[in-house]
């Protein structure tokens, strides 16, 4: 499975039963100068569509919503130490790894092509 995107500009990618969650390139471009990520603790349960983290730029705070539900198994220490990595490559830098509660939740999300069209309309 490739990347799946939400209308709130998060992505999820599922590999071998583990889901990686991040923010999209569109999101990082709009935030610009990302200087802080506030991530949940390992073990926290996420619910699809609910806020689980925040990403902050110099002047703004942006909530991050869970694309799918599940339990956090790892958080990105790399981003905690260098949040600007999100500006460099948003799709390579996941915020959290989770064990999905129900992989089928990702079916409702947009694939890369649909998301590209969605972003064009958002402009």
């Amino acid at each position, binding site marked *: 499975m490739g990347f799946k995107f939400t209308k709130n500009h998060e992505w999820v990618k599922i590999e071998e039963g583990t889901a990686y969650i991040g923010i999209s390139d569109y999101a990082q471009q709009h935030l610009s100068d990302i200087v*802080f990520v506030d991530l949940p603790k390992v073990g926290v349960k996420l619910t699809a569509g609910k806020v689980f983290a925040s990403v902050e730029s110099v*002047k703004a705070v942006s909530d991050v919503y869970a694309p799918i539900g599940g339990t956090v198994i790892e958080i990105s220490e790399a981003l905690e130490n260098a949040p600007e990595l999100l500006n460099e490559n948003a799709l390579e830098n996941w915020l959290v790894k989770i064990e999905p509660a129900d992989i089928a939740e990702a079916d409702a999300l947009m694939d890369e092509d649909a998301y590209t069209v969605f972003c064009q309309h958002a402009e």
Partner: protein
Amino acid sequence: MLKRTPLYECHIDLGAKMVDFGGWEMPIQYTSIIEEHQATREKAGLFDVSHMGEIIMKGSSSRAVLGKLVAADLDALAPQKIAYSFFTMENGGVVDDLLIYMVSDTEYFLVVNASNTDKDFAWLKEKVAELSPEVEVINYSDDYGQIAIQGPCAQDILQKLTKFDLSLIKFFTFATITVCEEDVLVSRTGYTGEDGFEIYCKPSQATELWHALLKAGESDGLAPIGLGARDTLRFESALPLYGHELSADITPIEAGLKFFVKFGVDDFLGRDILERQVAQGTTRKLAGIEMIERGIPRDGYRIEKDGQDVGYITSGAFSPTFKKGLAMVLLQTDIVQIDNEVDVVIRDKKVKAKIVKLPFYKKVRK
């Protein structure tokens, strides 16, 4: 419909991200707030501040009338000099903060906040009508473009465009000089904590001046700067922003601006309260904090000490210069001691911070 400055097209051509700022369509950033902030601190930045309000007060009793409305000592002012001051209210709160350019004792050029211009003008008209109908108050905001050039290279860059020796314009003074063959008013003032100038011109001159400055500053690293970095620059230098550090409910004394409140011969509105606050102190005052634990303090976040609410953040941000979360906070006075630890309530979590000295950033003036 948002108002646009004479430089609107220049911002679009430069690919700026535009936002609504107090009814004005203004550039928030051109490239990145951090890059623009650093360019201003290290080299120079160019700002469109045409949205600022310009009000002229003139008439034979201008000196007496203005003296009743601002917490300034107008006798200490002289032609070509500028004072930073406040339109005060009976309760000691502030209608707006402003720059007073003294043209003569019968004419003052007042520069006020963009989003307060209409309010200030209406308030001034009313007060002046009561005090002396002979004095004229005219809102010239639409008749001025305003460009600021700020940073260590600002003088060298502007000097390329004028024969006038800019070193003669001292801090907080102004002169009418010829720049690019046009007569403009230039003051050594700004809102960044850096050396620099603010240039007042006709709207029709603004575009040419903007391009000439960008070109003259190209080799010095001059960059156009949006409102995002304008805010982080003023914030690090602890320069107040109306609606944040100052308001109808926050006096200049509480905001730590005692130095700028002058008790001259005039009995201005709220003088008794401000004098009492100077003599007796205030129950709350402005302080700086720096995060100890991870987090970015933002405007409006509450501050707690031992579980008690002790104040709130008036302006907070990630500081591009110091690479950490800093904030100005209005705190109960007894809490304000350097290194005292407090909790910032960030999304229902308490995050440790400590009190530090203001301003966060200070540059030695020429």
